[in-house]
């Protein structure tokens, strides 16, 4: 059997993922996180905190909660269930950093934790900065 035929055979027997169900789940949980953020934001602004600062505080609270839940050991079960609903928002970024930190702390503070803490989040940071730079350049060229 040649390799192309074999790939077809593999495809035939490999179960497909329930993409629609996963997407729907992610859509709903993502929206829930959005709603929670709005609630936090509203509470903060009701205490006379400015919109800009309330925004930052909302993000910080979400990051804190995601990291705390990761540390307490149950956030990974949530991620395994709802997948991108928790991975795409800022909670996923916090979770990836905390889980790497937990995983590598026993390998030493420099060689383990320090070297690996951005193992998963590193790409997000790097390409976030690169795309921000490119967009900023485009903005300057177009609008001065």
């Amino acid at each position, binding site marked *: 059997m040649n390799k192309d035929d074999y*790939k077809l*055979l593999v495809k035939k027997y*490999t*179960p497909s*993922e329930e993409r629609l169900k996963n997407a729907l789940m992610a859509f709903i949980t993502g929206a829930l996180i959005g709603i929670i953020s709005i609630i936090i934001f509203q509470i903060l602004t009701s205490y006379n905190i400015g919109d800009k600062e309330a925004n930052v505080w909302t993000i910080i609270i979400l990051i804190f909660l995601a990291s705390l839940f990761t540390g307490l050991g149950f956030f990974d079960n949530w*991620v*395994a269930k709802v997948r991108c609903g928790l991975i795409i928002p800022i909670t996923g970024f916090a979770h990836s950093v905390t*889980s790497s930190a937990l995983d590598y702390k*026993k390998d030493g503070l420099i060689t383990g934790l320090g070297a690996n803490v951005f193992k998963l989040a590193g790409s997000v940071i790097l390409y976030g900065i690169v795309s921000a730079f490119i967009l900023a350049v485009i903005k300057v060229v177009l609008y001065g």
Partner: protein
Amino acid sequence: MASFKFKNVYILDTYSIAGPNEIKGSIKNYDQVITDYYFGMKTFEDAEEKMQQACLDNIISKNKIETKVDLVVAGELSNQLAISNDVMAKYQIPYLGCYSACASFNESLIIASNMIDSKKIKNAISLTSSHINVAERQFRYPIEYGAPKIKRSTLTATGAVGVYLSNKESNIKVTSATIGEVVDYGISDCLNMGAVMAPAAFTTLKKHLEDFKIDSNYYDLIITGDLGRVGSKIFKELLKENNIKLDNYIDAGSLLFKEEEFAIAGSSGPVTLPLVVFNKILKTKKYHRILLLATGSLHSTTLVNQKKTIPAICHAISLEVEDDLS
């Protein structure tokens, strides 16, 4: 020829330890079960070492062979065989480490049996282990990340198995072996290890049957290591296309992690096959001749990232059982 028979190699004793996932299925009667992945240690790596040590210590003390072990052959998944090397540093026993990924169990049996059969040594202990979190850290994502599992993927089994081989007669005889070839059918998806390994299992089984000029019905049972539900379907299809009949077949990985419990393809890891063989298959007393096909996906994370296709290997070893283990 890579197939040969053994004249006087016997399995005198085995010791198995299994983790919390492994008792969820139909197998419950392991020699020891650990409920905590740390096994009372500080790291998962230490836990896997402790499991190997427990197997070794129990076999040595039960058979009173403190100063008489000629050789230990150990295989597991950690980089540089770090776990086995570290364990063996605590013993003054000649040691060989071997790596064929999840086919390491059969490789260690073949090496040990060959040495005993050629009368270079009198006895040997084969050690195999894997730990879900050690493997997860090394091959996949941080443990607390909880990367979503997909249907075609497998989970590494947690456990350790020690097998005490000797030239003294017992009711389990190691009869023959086939050393496998590395095959690569162009699959680069390291989550679909069943698809990577199925051609290796097929190639080795075909060679084994051809070399000994036997039919697959010669064996009461043919058992693959960790093809999983996806891989074993492909394996059967490959055999069908080559007109090899296979009625007496099961897959250890599919049996250990049942579909109802785990929404994945099954269990992987070198310890899967010996856990199922020594704690279920041999204890049912149903089978006289058994062929073990241990399959291994020989991937490295570096080469997978470099988009290379994944090679696989399968070693076969056959057992003849007179009675059950106990």
